């Protein structure tokens, strides 16, 4: 199908007003509308998979701004397809979850229209190779997110939304500077053309650009020390939005670092600077992983706990990215260090996306039913809400990295990659050791979460307890989709691994 990717853009864009109008009649229909659009898009992306598997990349090009040498280039390869698929799955789950979760809120037509708009930017980010279009989508994720968090969030929601917007927008303008500089140096706005041109041009500017880009993306990833927006935004947002934010939006930062900073600019920065840069990333990743895990261990607010675990997991991803394959001199030959870690990192983006989405949605379900968010006031909910308990436990175990759930296999691959890299670059010895300790911490807070919320003795008095019952059906459907995904990715990661491994990094072209 030759217009597959263009349709992925156009269908949700055109549908936004219709979703709004449908929502005026029946919010439920609007939710299903959004989910259906996502399913159609999922199918459209699926049609490109054979091409990806056979030739590595599927591209569509349309004319756009010829003065800037920018065309509307849509492309998908193994990595972008995997993450786009997971984004769409989360949007489906979020839309269905919203039917019950948002039931008594105001302005629902606007909510679903914004969700639909968000899906354009969110999926679009992964599907373009044009830097300008990439930036368009990058910011298009932000505006609907701002309004959803602000309007339908908890407590001081607009303040959290403001933080979300300002932080990520400040990061984004540095990305813009980087993109502008790349265009100026090479005269191209297409990633792959830029990569080729930059390799011949080289020079110091590549160093500045890689720092500006990575700093900008790191804000989105909420790597310590630019993580301050995340705990507020994720905990005040409605659960559906938290799931999307934590599941895929912050991972878009990781994707962008991999695709732009490392994929495009990195080959031109030179070996010495490159090695320092990667080491720096590893250290930031390590700090994030520890910081996030330690705070998650003591946090009592159910959503903030999960939010901090997201910081921790972005730390793993950052660490994984720092294991980017570089060419090293081994004796007289030049060899490329294994790409296992990067494969693992991309898989971790995927598996963390589903697991964290599931965890946030089940936390939202718990909050929805118990009307509290302090885990000290919960307990023994497994008996009252068995379905939610099973879903949340699966998610928590996955976050902890326990087999057979999704995150186990990806973390395992990252560590395998790390050990392979250590034999060439002894710097990684200590960070890897510390990262292993961090996984123990993540197991600790996951278990603490599960036991405090679902196990033990009920804390509420009898009157309150009688009101608690398991979640309504649409929520169950939504959680079930994600539980299936978490287990599926865990026991059969081959589908995603096959896709991811079609992408070759560290080599020109």
């Amino acid at each position: 199908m030759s217009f597959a990717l263009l349709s992925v853009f156009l269908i949700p864009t055109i549908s936004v007003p219709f979703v709004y109008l449908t929502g005026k009649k029946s919010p439920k229909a609007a939710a299903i509308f959004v989910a259906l659009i996502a399913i159609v898009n999922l199918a459209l992306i699926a049609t490109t998979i054979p091409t990806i598997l056979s030739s590595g990349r599927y591209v569509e090009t349309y004319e756009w701004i010829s003065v800037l040498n920018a065309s509307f280039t849509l492309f998908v390869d193994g990595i972008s397809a995997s993450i786009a698929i997971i984004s769409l799955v989360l949007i489906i789950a979020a839309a269905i979850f919203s039917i019950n979760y948002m039931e008594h809120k105001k302005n629902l037509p606007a909510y679903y229209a914004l969700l639909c708009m968000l899906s354009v930017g969110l999926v679009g980010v992964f599907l373009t190779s044009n830097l300008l279009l990439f930036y368009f989508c990058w910011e298009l994720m932000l505006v609907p997110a701002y309004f959803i968090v602000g309007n339908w969030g908890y407590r001081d929601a607009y303040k959290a939304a403001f933080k979300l917007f300002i932080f990520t927008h400040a990061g984004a303008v540095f990305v813009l500077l980087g993109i502008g500089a790349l265009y100026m140096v090479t005269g191209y706005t297409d990633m792959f053309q830029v990569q080729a041109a930059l390799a011949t041009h080289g020079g110091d500017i590549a160093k500045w650009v890689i720092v500006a880009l990575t700093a900008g993306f790191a804000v989105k990833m909420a790597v310590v020390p630019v993580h301050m927006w995340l705990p507020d935004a994720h905990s005040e947002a409605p659960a559906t939005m938290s799931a999307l934010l934590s599941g895929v939006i912050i991972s878009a930062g990781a994707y962008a670092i991999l695709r732009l900073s490392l994929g495009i600019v990195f080959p031109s920065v030179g070996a010495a600077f490159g090695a320092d840069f990667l080491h720096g990333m590893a250290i930031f990743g390590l700090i994030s992983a520890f910081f996030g895990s330690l705070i998650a261990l003591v946090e009592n607010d159910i959503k903030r706990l999960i939010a901090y675990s997201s910081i921790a997991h972005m730390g793993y991803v950052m660490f994984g990215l720092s294991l980017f394959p570089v060419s090293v001199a081994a004796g007289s030959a030049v060899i490329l260090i294994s790409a296992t870690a990067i494969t693992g990192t991309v898989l971790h983006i995927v598996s963390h996306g589903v697991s964290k989405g599931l965890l946030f949605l089940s936390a939202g379900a718990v909050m929805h039913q118990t009307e509290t968010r302090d885990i000290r006031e919960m307990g023994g909910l497994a008996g009252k809400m068995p379905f939610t308990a099973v879903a949340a436990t699966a998610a928590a175990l996955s976050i902890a990295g326990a087999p057979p759930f999704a995150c186990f296999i990806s973390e395992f691959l990252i560590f395998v990659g790390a050990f392979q890299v250590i034999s060439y670059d002894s710097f990684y010895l200590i960070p890897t050791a510390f990262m292993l300790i961090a996984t123990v911490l993540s197991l600790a807070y996951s278990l603490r979460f599960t036991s405090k919320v679902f196990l033990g003795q009920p804390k509420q008095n009898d009157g309150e307890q009688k009101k608690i019952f398991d979640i309504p059906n649409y929520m169950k459907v939504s959680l079930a989709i994600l539980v299936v995904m978490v287990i599926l990715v865990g026991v059969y990661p081959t589908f995603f691994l096959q896709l991811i491994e079609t992408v070759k990094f560290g080599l020109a072209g």
Partner: protein
Amino acid sequence: MIEIIDIILPILSLVISALLTIPVFRLIRKSSHKLALTVGWFMAVYAVAGTAVANLALKYYGLESYSVLNFTLNGGALAGLSSSFMIDVISIYMSIIVIALSAIILIYTVFAINSNERPSERYFAIMLMLTAALLGAVLSGDLLTLFIFWEAAAAGAGFLMLYKKNALTINSTLKYLVMIIIASAFVVFGLSIVYGITGSLNFTDVQQALVTLADKRLLVIAFIFIATGYAIESAIVPFHFWLPDAYTAAPSTSAAFLSALVDQGSYYILIRVLVFIITPAGLNWIFMLAVMAALTMIVGNLFALIQTNVKRLIANICVADVGYNLVAITSYTSLGLVGNLYFFLIGGITTALAFMAVGVMNSHGYKTLEDFSGIGRKMPLVSLALVMAGLSFAGVPPLGGFMAKYLVFTSAIEANMSWLAVIGVLTSVLQTAYLFRLVNYMYARKPKDETVINESKRILIPIFILAAAILILGLFPQIVFNLLQPGGNLQLIPPI
């Protein structure tokens, strides 16, 4: 073939319709369909003027090469001083956006002010006159003609601020006029020196003469006078103090007109004089201007940050916008110039849109940030337009402001002035911060009162035309670039 009449026709038609407006209004007031007739009259006026501009543009784009065409009214001994017109891609482009924006703002004015009131016909006539003067300015071919038309526009703009006479408007108008008179005195003095050293005021002749000029001491003096004069008129820091006062005191219809047309006209003159006449080869002004650009961006945005009156906040954004325009002029690249001209259009539309939306809110008595609390729920459609303008100011894609800023910053990087681009980007973040504070007030706060407001549907038409324009031009900037570079990659910067 373009005749001189093709150039004069749009200007003349607007002047005549401006003069006719007063008797026509007298007739309209006697009839029973006042609003319909008023709208009909102005549509007719703009149909004529628009056709004249379209005729000029089509003839120009129909030419085989898009060169600079000079027309002199009368030659002879004093040919260097006689009025002349010049058209190139830029003046054609400017005349198109002047006429289009003026039409939309005028329609808004018809809906926004009560046209049965006595001085309204004068107000409309002045608007038409100003449009004519601006068209004359962008089409003029020598420094004197440019000066005459531009001063007519700038001084005439003072009368737009005086629609409602009270202490505040008289005060700020006076301030404005004094500034403009000082500025024009500076410019005239500078121009006389230029004429003295080059023997001509024609753009091309002066440019050539200055490049080969050996002794540049007089030129430096002339440049200081001219640059100061035009810096005052386009409100470059440190000469910007009149602008926020004037725009805040003026009715929002005037503020929209001034910001979208007169302001952008003053940037056009900066471009024309700095890039095409006193080129860096004639006198190297680049670093000085870069410093001013940085100052203007910083000061404009910092002042906007501390405002509590929303209209004043937008007026301060106008100051900051001057800074972003200067960045592009400073870069002295073709890309920067394209970005600049695109910025004119988008900046004009965005500020006009913001003033229009704020004007509607002001008319219900909401003025300060506190008043704006919860206004997003009370007036959802106008608020949506204001949010779109805010997002465009902040440079959020896919709105036009993003592409404008992208072009400007990129051109600064191209000209090896990354520091300027970095300052621009940082101030742009500041801009986002205070604009989102506004959005925060509009949507997050509880409204102060529970009055239900019926939004007037009519007035939304011009507002949403502009809102749609920001979105469409942001998504497809190629529409504008095609006007600027009709034959593909045309070199806009004159070869030195």
